[in-house]
């Protein structure tokens, strides 16, 4: 049953060193506030999971919170590379990171299998790709009716799923709209879940298309603009300038470390982070 709580308390109570954690979001609704809180609470040895690791995971990898990354596409969309991700993979800074990589279709099938309580999912995928040689979590399965060989992927069971959404209603149910990606599956694939939302409402906006009932959620925290620099349909636009600016911030180890201290690690909460970023953006503007 979802507890409406502070983000600090949610992370403190639900995320542990060494956990397998997915902070999901497909461009839309990326849970930056929750990711930052995980970093402020200096969690380590995480296995980070996400189909599309972007700047948030670059930050988390760059400060050394992750030992492993399970993913299918890691980049700064429309901008270029994730420099911290690359530095960890190419040069082992701040420490080496183990990769397990898949295709989007494979990751989606893995989430669906876990959400469905199955040990594996079936798809037409990976065939002929060198991806097959790099993971033990892809195999083959034979159709018992046609004899056809298909690809099997291992269910992606999570310790913790973290997502951002538009609203929580008075019963603790969470409502989303717009591109909802694989967030429902991630929550249902996890033992524990944290949802940050833009606001608490008496009854959902009529635009809500996906509802996660209170009783499948562990904690809900109200964090306005908690997806910045990603966006929340109906509440905020994507801060494309920040994604572009991240390229320069993240290119240099020293500048990155200083920026993280000043903007994430040594601030009180995500509200402070946003005020800092906004002020700098106004100065730069």
């Amino acid at each position: 049953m979802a507890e409406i709580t502070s983000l600090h308390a949610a992370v403190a109570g639900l995320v542990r060193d060494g956990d397998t954690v997915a902070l999901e979001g497909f461009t839309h609704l990326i849970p930056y506030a929750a990711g930052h809180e995980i970093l402020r609470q200096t969690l380590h040895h995480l296995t980070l999971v996400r189909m599309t690791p972007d700047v948030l995971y670059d930050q988390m990898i760059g400060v050394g919170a992750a030992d492993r990354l399970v993913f299918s596409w890691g980049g700064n969309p429309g901008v270029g590379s994730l420099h911290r991700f690359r530095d960890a993979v190419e040069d082992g800074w701040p420490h080496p990171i183990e990769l397990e990589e898949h295709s989007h279709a494979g990751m989606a099938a893995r989430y669906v299998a876990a959400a469905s309580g199955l040990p594996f999912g079936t798809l037409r995928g990976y065939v002929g790709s060198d991806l097959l040689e790099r993971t033990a979590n892809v195999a083959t399965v034979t159709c018992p009716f046609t004899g056809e060989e298909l690809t099997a992927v291992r269910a992606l069971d999570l310790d913790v799923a973290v997502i951002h959404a538009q609203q929580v209603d008075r019963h603790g149910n969470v409502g989303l709209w717009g591109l909802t990606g694989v967030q429902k599956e991630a929550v249902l694939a996890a033992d524990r879940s944290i949802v940050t939302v833009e606001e608490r409402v008496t009854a959902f906006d009529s635009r809500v298309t996906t509802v996660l009932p209170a009783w499948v959620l562990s904690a809900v925290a109200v964090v306005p603009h908690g997806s910045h620099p990603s966006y929340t349909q109906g509440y905020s636009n994507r801060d494309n300038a920040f994604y572009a600016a991240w390229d320069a911030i993240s290119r240099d180890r020293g500048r990155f470390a200083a920026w993280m201290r000043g903007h994430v690690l040594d601030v009180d909460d995500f509200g402070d982070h946003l005020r800092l970023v906004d002020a700098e953006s106004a100065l730069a503007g």
Partner: protein
Amino acid sequence: MTVSADDIMTVVAARTLRDRAVCFVGIGLPSLAANLARRLHAPDIVLVYESGAIGAKPTTPPLSIGDGELAETADAVVSVPEIFAYWLQAGRIDVGFLSAAQIDRYANINTTVIGPYDDPKVRLPGAGGAPEIAASSREVIVVVRQSLRTFVDRLDFVTSVGHHAGHDSRARLGLRGRGPIAVITDLGVLRPDPVSQELVLTEVHPGVVVEEVSARTGWPLRISPTLTVTAAPTPVELTALEELRGRLA
């Protein structure tokens, strides 16, 4: 109006898309080309984005694959698992539009890593939707700038399969789509030989000489005996492209 190499690549890519085709488009040049086609000869083209937007009609080419306007303008918005299972895997996509960091003579694609996997020179973003787009779309079009860095004799990593080892080897893998039917570059257009499936230069863009294309290809490039020159981008095409780019800025 000056015509950049990227402009002509985008215009030629747009021209290959017929109206009403259902296109699975990645971000960047593929998305730009598909949206250009929609403004020109293919107003009823159906753009499918892996973020879950089916029939998106963005006024601005999306910077990212999950921009809000995709959902707002789409005919249908579905989950990411559904996009891959019900729509791509089930064979409902006419054209898959891909780019590449490396491509070989059989149009196999690498978007994973430059150098050895365990000690990479450049770590690239990875597979994304490409392996299954390449496998399950009825046809695949690749859009990529041509250079010795990208057109290589041997991929450092096979992320997505084109025509595999040539001849019928792709079909023997069990892949259901036809595979790449064209590779559109900033220099010309390459198409697979109907028998061997090796890429053959069939078109050069205006002002491009064959030697330049060969020089920017990491294997002995076959040239079509009926090589043609791409029709120059028309003012209408270039104006539409500039409008799109302007909206992007």
